[in-house]
């Protein structure tokens, strides 16, 4: 008979309309998966204690890789032997997480035979997270995964699994081929991904446009965000149709009967006030537009990003540990992103070289830049300073000049000074 623990508290989470992970795990436990029964048992104990029951990982992994597996052990293994080892295997997802049932079933089959059958779809970096393997199964899981064309993602002080929005595959706003960039970077930097060699972790995320659906500017050390340099494309007939109330506002995001007031909802909310609407013609002063996407979001059938597309590169985002959260800062305002992305990769390699040399242990690149200065970083990656790099110029007056910036340098003789000024 399948193993079962009493879980009165967790049972409360089977109620209510949202899908219940407890119900799902219970049915898996009923098939005889002790790991699932013991996972619920241990979780129930945590609910009682209001404290977790997992121990530090220790070093586990597969041969030749420095990451991709996170070690995890129960601190109450006698009570719950099925989760004594509960290691995570990070499986690198296909960019934008498209699947076919046939191929994913094969992965699930491996996991049913060799692991707990528990997953995260997906981890917050993007990987498929297989949750709960014993140490002696890790090599077997890895061998079976690779034989089917799958590989592990990153962990530790390495390149983490890059991720992207679904870009051009299904979004009309995508200014760059986000999935291809993601895939290309993943393949080009396999060594950096699998063998941690840096001060700390490094993440790439690719958003096809400034809507930032994968939150690249908040969540990646290097955000690649699609944008354009020419004019927003306007379909006049479609503008008229919006004005006539034929199309729903905002792509139907507020319901099909919410229509658009072009003046109030589009022009008045444009942050640069660069749009004008006279009841017939919508005009945009593109030179003043900051490409925020608002108008395009409001009228997707009438407006499209321009055709001279590329990306803005923002560097340095990270969660709060240690010095507080940071968002990415603009480093390269515009770069063309055409395969094989040579110009971008040259930039990346300069950036990594600088960080590798200057970063302290467990220091994200954003923190290294903060410590040593944005100006220093721009010089290292050979980007000319530009007002686009700042919100505003500095207001503190303590400007550090270098000796070679001042005529005659710093070396002066006090005797010369004294010739002009009495003591």
């Amino acid at each position, binding site marked *: 008979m399948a193993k079962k623990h009493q879980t009165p508290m967790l049972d409360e989470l089977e109620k209510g309309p949202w899908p219940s992970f407890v119900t799902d795990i219970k049915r898996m436990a009923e098939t005889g998966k002790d790991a699932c029964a013991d996972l619920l048992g241990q979780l129930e104990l945590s609910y009682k204690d209001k404290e977790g029951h997992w121990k530090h990982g220790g070093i586990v992994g597969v041969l030749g890789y420095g990451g991709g597996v996170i070690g995890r052990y129960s601190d109450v293994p006698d009570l719950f032997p099925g989760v004594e080892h509960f290691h995570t295997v990070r499986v690198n997802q296909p*960019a934008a997480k498209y699947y076919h049932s046939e191929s994913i079933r094969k992965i699930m089959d491996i996991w049913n035979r060799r692991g707990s059958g528990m997953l995260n779809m997906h981890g917050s970096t993007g990987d498929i997270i297989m949750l709960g393997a014993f140490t002696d199964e890790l090599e077997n899981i890895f061998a079976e995964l690779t034989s089917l064309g799958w590989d592990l993602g990153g962990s530790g002080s390495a390149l983490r699994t890059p991720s992207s929005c679904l870009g051009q*595959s299904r979004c009309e706003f995508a200014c760059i081929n986000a999935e291809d960039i993601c895939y290309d970077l993943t393949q080009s930097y396999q060594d950096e991904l699998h063998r941690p060699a840096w001060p700390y972790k490094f993440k790439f995320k690719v958003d096809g446009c400034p809507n930032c659906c994968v939150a690249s500017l908040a969540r990646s050390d290097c955000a690649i965000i699609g944008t354009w340099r020419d004019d927003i494309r306007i379909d006049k007939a479609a503008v008229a149709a919006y004005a006539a109330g034929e199309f729903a506002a905002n792509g139907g995001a507020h319901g099909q009967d919410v229509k658009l007031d072009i003046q109030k909802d589009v022009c008045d909310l444009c942050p640069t006030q660069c749009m004008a609407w006279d009841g017939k013609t919508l005009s945009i002063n593109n030179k003043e537009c900051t490409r925020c996407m608002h108008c395009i979001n409001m009228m997707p059938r009438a407006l499209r990003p321009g055709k001279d597309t590329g990306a803005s590169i923002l560097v340095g985002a990270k969660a709060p540990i240690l010095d507080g959260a940071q968002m990415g800062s603009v480093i390269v305002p515009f770069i063309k992103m055409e395969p094989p992305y040579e110009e971008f990769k040259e930039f990346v390699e300069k950036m990594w070289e600088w960080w590798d040399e200057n970063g302290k242990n467990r220091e994200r690149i954003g923190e290294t830049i903060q410590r040593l200065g944005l100006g220093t970083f721009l010089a290292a990656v050979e980007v000319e300073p530009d007002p686009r790099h700042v919100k505003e110029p500095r207001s503190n007056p303590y400007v550090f000049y270098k000796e070679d910036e001042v005529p005659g340098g710093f070396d002066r003789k006090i005797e010369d000074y004294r010739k002009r000024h009495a003591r």
Partner: protein
Amino acid sequence: MAERLTDIGPPKYDLFWPQVIKDNAGKWLYHDILEPGVLLHVSETGAKIWSVRCGTTRLMTTMMVEDICKLADQFCDGHFRFTTRNNVEFLVVDESKLEPLKKALKAAGNLPIGGTGASITNIVHTQGWVHCHTPAIDASGVVKAVMDDLFEYFGSHKMPAQVRISLACCLNMCGAVHCSDIAILGVHRKPPVIEHTHLDKMCEIPTTIASCPTAAIKPAKVDDFKSVAVNADRCMFCGNCYTMCPAMPLADADGDGIALWVGGKVSNSKSMPKFSKLAVPFIPNEPPRWPTTVKMVRQIVEAYVAGANRYERLGEWAERIGWERFFEKTGLEFTHHHIDDYRFAATTWRTSTQFKW
């Protein structure tokens, strides 16, 4: 044994695309959300694809994946994808399969349709007591309780704009909650308790000392054991030391709980991206259904719905009315914990006579 394969990378992104995407990638002309959870994309070629978005639990079994596969086989030739917020999207090419798919989803009961447009979509979250070693709270249980309560808003378009809720179970913020409309964050409130008898055996003392961002840890000798001491006044309960040194646990039933943060966004649309700001410093852990957290999240959501203009994100609304008004409208208490006292604190203090009564 066959040669060991390494460094092959993931399957290429287009391997699992339906044919209509292979034919139309880069050619999509516009999208239209036909009803909550159902998106239509139309290509320059006239080709169409329908996507039906459904919430999932993120933490799921292979049986749940099989449920999804079966539906995909039946209605989508096996094709589906996941979004960045743990939703699954069924990709429909044949319009006549749309209604039967929706019916089958409703019958299945574990894949609610919604999460598009001006809804409250699925909660991005982390591991909690299900897997990690440093959490202050559970993740999946809190998410379940909050989404049960907000369920009506998942499958409708009743919000002023999209609302993104995230949860992270400790300050590491694997869920990167720091730019969310509403963030649920697990926090510790007691400094680490030190196991002097074992610390030297389990940890490297210099790296443990170096791990502390506030320099609160010093070497110390306790009863002849080489160990460390923590200056409690400097500790900000971040857990970095515990990540380096298992002999310094922070978890504590009374110390740990939830903080709520509001008003962040990542999109560049209209206003600049914003960090989330502290709304509620601490709510005790209340398993299994965290009623106080659920209630306060709803309080915030309802004040926002009542006060915001259409298209205004939660943070844009709070900034327009002013934070003094935000606390009034939400009925949340403002305390000394809301005033920043960390490194860049002064940048958040009010330096003008302009404020509202």
